[in-house]
C-alpha cells in the first residue's frame, strides 16, 4: 500500500513537472502516426513480388530518375532566381511590398490544373514566351522543359519564403560592420549574409525539390511524356489498376525517404558544428 502511494505520488509529481512535454508528446504521436501509417502500409503491405518486378522495370526506374533530376534542375533555377528576390524582400522596403509577398504565395493556393493551363497560355506555341523559346529550339509541350516550368511555378514560393526568413534573421549590424571594414556589397553578401542564412536557404531549396517531385496537376497539362513518377503512378492505376500502381508509389516513397532523411541528417550535423 505504502509503496503504491509513494509510486502514485512520484508519478503525480513527475506528471506535474513535465505536463507540457507529456501533453505535447501525445499530440505529436497522433500526427506522426497519421503521416507514417499510410506510408508504411503502402511500402510493407504491398505485394513483395510486385515491388521486385517494379524495381526491375526500367520504365519505373527511368521515371523516378527523371523526376528526381527534373526537380533538382528546377530547384537550381529557383535558387538562382529566387534567392535574390528573397534578399530584396528581406532587406528593402518598396511600395506594394505586401502585395508582392502575397502574390508569391499564389502558386501554392491556385489549383494546379489551373496553374498548368495558365502556363500553357504563356509558354504555348502561339504565345509570346513560347514563340521566343521556340525560336531557340525549346518547346514546353511533352518535354523536360515543360516539366521544369510546371514544377518551378508550384514550388518556388517555398524557397523564396524560407530564404526570406533566413535573410531576416541575419543581424543587419553584422553587415554594416563588414561594410565599414571595407567589404563591397557583393563581398558582404557572399561572406556574411549568405553563410549566416544558408541553413534556411538550404531547407527552402530542399522543400522546393520535394514539392517538385510530388507535382502532378500542373505537369500533366504540359507534359505527359517523358513521364514523371506521379503521372506514371496515375497511368498505371488507370490502365492496370491498383496492383500495378502501388509498387511504383512504394518505390518512390522509399527513395524519397532515403534522400530526405539523409539531407536532414546532414543539416543536423551542420547545426551541431556551428
Amino acid at each position: 500500500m505504502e509503496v503504491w502511494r509513494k509510486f502514485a505520488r512520484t508519478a503525480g509529481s513527475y506528471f506535474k513537472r513535465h505536463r507540457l512535454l507529456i501533453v505535447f508528446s501525445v499530440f505529436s504521436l497522433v500526427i506522426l502516426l497519421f503521416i507514417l501509417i499510410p506510408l508504411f502500409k503502402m511500402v510493407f503491405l504491398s505485394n513483395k513480388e510486385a515491388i521486385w518486378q517494379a524495381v526491375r522495370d526500367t520504365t519505373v526506374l527511368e521515371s523516378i530518375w527523371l523526376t528526381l533530376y527534373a526537380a533538382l534542375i528546377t530547384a537550381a533555377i529557383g535558387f538562382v532566381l529566387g534567392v535574390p528576390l528573397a534578399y530584396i524582400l528581406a532587406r528593402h522596403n518598396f511600395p506594394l511590398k505586401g502585395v508582392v509577398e502575397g502574390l508569391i504565395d499564389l502558386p501554392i493556393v491556385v489549383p494546379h490544373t489551373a496553374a498548368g493551363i495558365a502556363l500553357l497560355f504563356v509558354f504555348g506555341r502561339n504565345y509570346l514566351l513560347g514563340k521566343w523559346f521556340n525560336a531557340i529550339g525549346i518547346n514546353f509541350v511533352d518535354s523536360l522543359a515543360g516539366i521544369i516550368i510546371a514544377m518551378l511555378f508550384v514550388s518556388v514560393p517555398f524557397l523564396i519564403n524560407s530564404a526570406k526568413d533566413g535573410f531576416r534573421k541575419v543581424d543587419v549590424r553584422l553587415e554594416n560592420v563588414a561594410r565599414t571594414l571595407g567589404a563591397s556589397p557583393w563581398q558582404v553578401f557572399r561572406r556574411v549574409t549568405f553563410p549566416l542564412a544558408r541553413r534556411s536557404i538550404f531547407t527552402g531549396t530542399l522543400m522546393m525539390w520535394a514539392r517538385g517531385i510530388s507535382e502532378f496537376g500542373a505537369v500533366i497539362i504540359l507534359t505527359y511524356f517523358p513521364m514523371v513518377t506521379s503521372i506514371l503512378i496515375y497511368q498505371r492505376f488507370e490502365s492496370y489498376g491498383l496492383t500495378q500502381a502501388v509498387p511504383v508509389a512504394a518505390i518512390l516513397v522509399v527513395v524519397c525517404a532515403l534522400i530526405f532523411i539523409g539531407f536532414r541528417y546532414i543539416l543536423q550535423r551542420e547545426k551541431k558544428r556551428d
Partner: protein
Amino acid sequence: MRRIRQGIIALLLTGAIILSGCSGTSTKKSTLVVLEADSLMVPFAQIQTAFEQANPDINVELQPYGSIQAIRQVTELGQQADLVAVADETLVPMMMYQTKMANGQPYAGWDIESNTNELVLAYTATSKYADEINSSNWYQIISRPDVVFGLTDPRIDAVGYRTLMTLGLAATYYDDPTLVQDAVGSHFSMPITADTVNGTTTVSVPELLEPIDSHLVLRNADMELLALLQSGNVDYTIDYKSVVMQDGLNYIELPAEINLGDINEAQTYQKVTVNMDYQRFATVNPVFGGTPIIYGMTIPNNAQNPSDAIKFIQFVLGTKGQEIFNNCSQPEMVPPICDNVSALPNALKTLFH
C-alpha cells in the same frame, strides 16, 4: 487578460455549437452519390438542378471521372456509389458483372443504355491548314507530319480507343490503308498497328505508348487535349460532338459509317477491333469491338441509397431528362435498352416492356 481569454474561448465554443447545429438540422436531406463519365458533366449538371428542384429532400453529388476510372472507384477503391454512369455501356458487363464483392455478389447485375453521342474532328481557327480542311480531306490533313494531332490515351479513356476505331474504319471507308499508322500509329516508339483482313480492321495498341515526334501529343483525358487545342499546341483532335460543342470549338462532322454515332450502322462498326496488348497484368479484357457510342448506367449492388438512384434514373429517362440530353447533342435512344432486365429493381422494370 484571463477574462479576455475566457471570452475568446466562449465565443469560439458558441460559434462551433452554432455551426454544428446548422449542419445538424439540414441533414434530413439524403445524399445521392453519382460517379459519371467526364462527357456527362454538362447534361448531368443540368439534370441535377432540375432533379433537386423536383426532389428537394435529395442532394445529388456528381463526381466526374474517365469511364474506366469511374468503375474502378467502385470495384478497386471500394467507394460506395449509388449510381455509375459511363460513356461505354460495354464496360459495365466487362468490369462490374465479372468482379465480385467480399460477399461473392458481383458489383452490378444490369445496365441501362439510353443515350448516344458521336465523334467529330475538333479544331480551332488557328489550327494548321484550318482554311483548307473539309469533310473530304480531313484524314489527309491530320496525317501531315507538320500537323499536331492530339490523342487521348486509349488504355485509359474510352475516347482514346474510339478514336482508333474511327481511324480504323476511315482507313477502309476512304481506301487509305496506312491512315492509322500515318495519323497516329507510327509516331510512337512501339507503333500502333492496323491490319485489314477481309474488310475487318484490327488495331493493336502496344503496352508502352511513348510518342517519338512532335506530330503526336498523348494525354490521359480529352479535357487536357482541349486545353492544348485552345492554346494552339494541338491542331486537331477527335472527341465527342457534345463536348466539342459545349466548348464552342470548330468541328468537322464525320460520316455516319465511321463516327460511331448511328445505331443503324452498328454492323459497319463491327468491322473494327482495338486490341490492347497488355496481357501481363490486364484487369480489363483488353479487346474492344467497334460498337456505337452508348452511355450505360447501373446501380452498384453495394449502393447505400439505391431508392434515390432509382428516382434519378427515372428522371434521366423521363421527358425532362431526355430533353436536356437532346439539347446537349447526346441524343436519346428510342426506346432505351436494358441489359439483363431480370436483375433490374422492380421500380425500373416497368420502363422496359
